[in-house]
């Protein structure tokens, strides 16, 4: 099982995810700019930002403790581990045994917790506010995620990512089953909340009244900021890949043949582009929700998850 080719593909897939993540963020920004009649920066702009940040010096607050120094590595590390587990190109991988949906979601949550701790650590007012908001949203999006996962797992009979994808490939009709579609919508809403996209958080502003993610990372600069930003782009990529490859798994390679890998690469990029375009359109169309209405949005996601679970019981 642990053959070298498999491990190489596994590592290659994680590196690919790392390499593609800034482009994905840049693509969303570019597309949004285009739809808002702006020229927009090219999609490789985030790479330039990363390079700039890695070269810069750091300014660390005198009041920062070791948590502040540890957090960027935990955030980046746990997100990279998740990208090792998610089926980006190939579905049965050497690490498939631990590629559990719960593991993925809670590894991502680990990163969120450390981000919130880092925001609190320096004692700045904005950081604390951002952390408190982030934790509120994380706490209410948890049940919604759990339900969406449960409905997927019920349909496939397993919470294993490879198993779910394989089951859907084997039974194409299950992809249009209501449980599947409702769970997709539920997970998409939660994804928007978890990655700080528009109806919940605005990724392109530093307006103190509205920011959540930006408020927490306000104290970071230089290479630390680069790591945190890269991790947040990677998180977006991981969520979109999950949405693409679990719900519409066609194109995913089931062997390590080069042609299958090439098809898988193209199909994954295509799915990412489609989903990213959907996010960009959504972000252009909707306004940010009042913070007090965010629980209602997540309640919508929760109800959709509930419906998905209920209907996956009734269909079988």
């Amino acid at each position, binding site marked *: 099982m642990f053959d070298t080719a498999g491990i190489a593909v596994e590592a290659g897939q994680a590196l690919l995810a790392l390499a593609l993540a800034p482009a994905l963020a840049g693509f969303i920004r570019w597309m949004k700019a285009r739809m808002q009649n702006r020229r927009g920066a090219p999609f490789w702009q985030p790479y330039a930002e990363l390079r700039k940040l890695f070269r810069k010096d750091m300014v660390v607050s005198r009041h920062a403790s070791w948590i502040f120094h540890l957090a960027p590595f935990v955030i980046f590390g746990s997100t990279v581990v998740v990208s090792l587990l998610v089926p980006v190109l190939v579905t049965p991988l050497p690490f498939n045994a631990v590629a559990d949906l719960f593991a993925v979601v809670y590894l991502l949550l680990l990163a969120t917790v450390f981000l919130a701790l880092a925001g609190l650590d320096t004692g700045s007012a904005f950081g604390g506010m951002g952390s408190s908001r982030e934790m509120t949203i994380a706490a209410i999006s948890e049940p919604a995620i759990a339900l969406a996962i449960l409905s997927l797992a019920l349909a496939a009979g397993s919470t294993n990512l490879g198993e779910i994808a394989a089951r859907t490939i084997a039974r194409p009709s299950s992809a249009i089953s*209501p449980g599947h579609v409702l769970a997709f919508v539920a997970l998409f809403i939660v994804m928007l909340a978890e990655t700080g996209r528009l109806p919940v958080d605005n990724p392109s502003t530093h307006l103190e009244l509205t920011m959540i993610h930006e408020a927490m990372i306000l104290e970071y600069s230089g290479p630390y900021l680069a790591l945190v930003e890269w991790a947040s782009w990677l998180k977006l990529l991981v969520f979109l890949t999950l949405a693409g490859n679990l719900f519409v798994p066609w194109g995913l390679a089931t062997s390590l043949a080069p042609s299958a890998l090439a098809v898988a690469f193209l199909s994954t990029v295509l799915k990412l582009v489609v989903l990213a375009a959907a996010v960009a359109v959504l972000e252009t169309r909707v306004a940010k929700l009042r913070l007090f209405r965010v629980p209602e949005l997540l309640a919508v996601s*929760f109800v959709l998850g*509930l419906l998905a679970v209920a209907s996956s019981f009734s269909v079988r």
Partner: protein
Amino acid sequence: MQGVFSQVAVMGSSGVLLCGLILLWRRGVAAYITAFTWQSVVLAALTAAVGYFGDDPQLYAVAALLLVIKAVAIPRLLRRVAQRFTVGREPAPYVNTGTSLVVSGLLVLLAHAAARPLEAIAEVPTRAGMPMAMGLLFISLFIIVSRKMAITQVIGFLMLENAIALLAVLATYGVPLIVELGVFLDALMGFLVMQIFLYDIHETFSTADVDVLKRLRH
């Protein structure tokens, strides 16, 4: 074929149900009317699909009628009523949005439990959608009791009507056309009567908020 039919039925009834849920999440009568229109369109499409898969050409006529009456005529009348009263945002309902969403989720679960015996005796491949129709029925009743504005309650009533029509289509491939016609006429008449009531309420109390009707007691 059977499998696809069953999937389409469940999919369509989920769509109808989701349009009902929009009423709980959005605010503003215009959004409610749009949700109702889409619900009727999905219902008509599902009826036509059942007619196609179940090989019952009468259902095409029912679908066309649904489209004309519930997706075009009634929404237009509703818009006119809404404009007349210049109702913008609805006052906060008796139950807040988050709670009512969760309640509606529980109602759908209840519907799944309640529809189990029905599903057990039904032979048709569309039976899997019946819990959704029951769920919509419960949710529309919930909307009627939890909202303050008369026009929202009317929309809730119309959705209740849609739920019953959906249940009929799913359980028995629709009732005979003549009965269906009678039901449509009933719905339209009921709506017109309610419209007159709405006007009267508005005339007398200069508001369409049914909370104010408590003044009748004095």
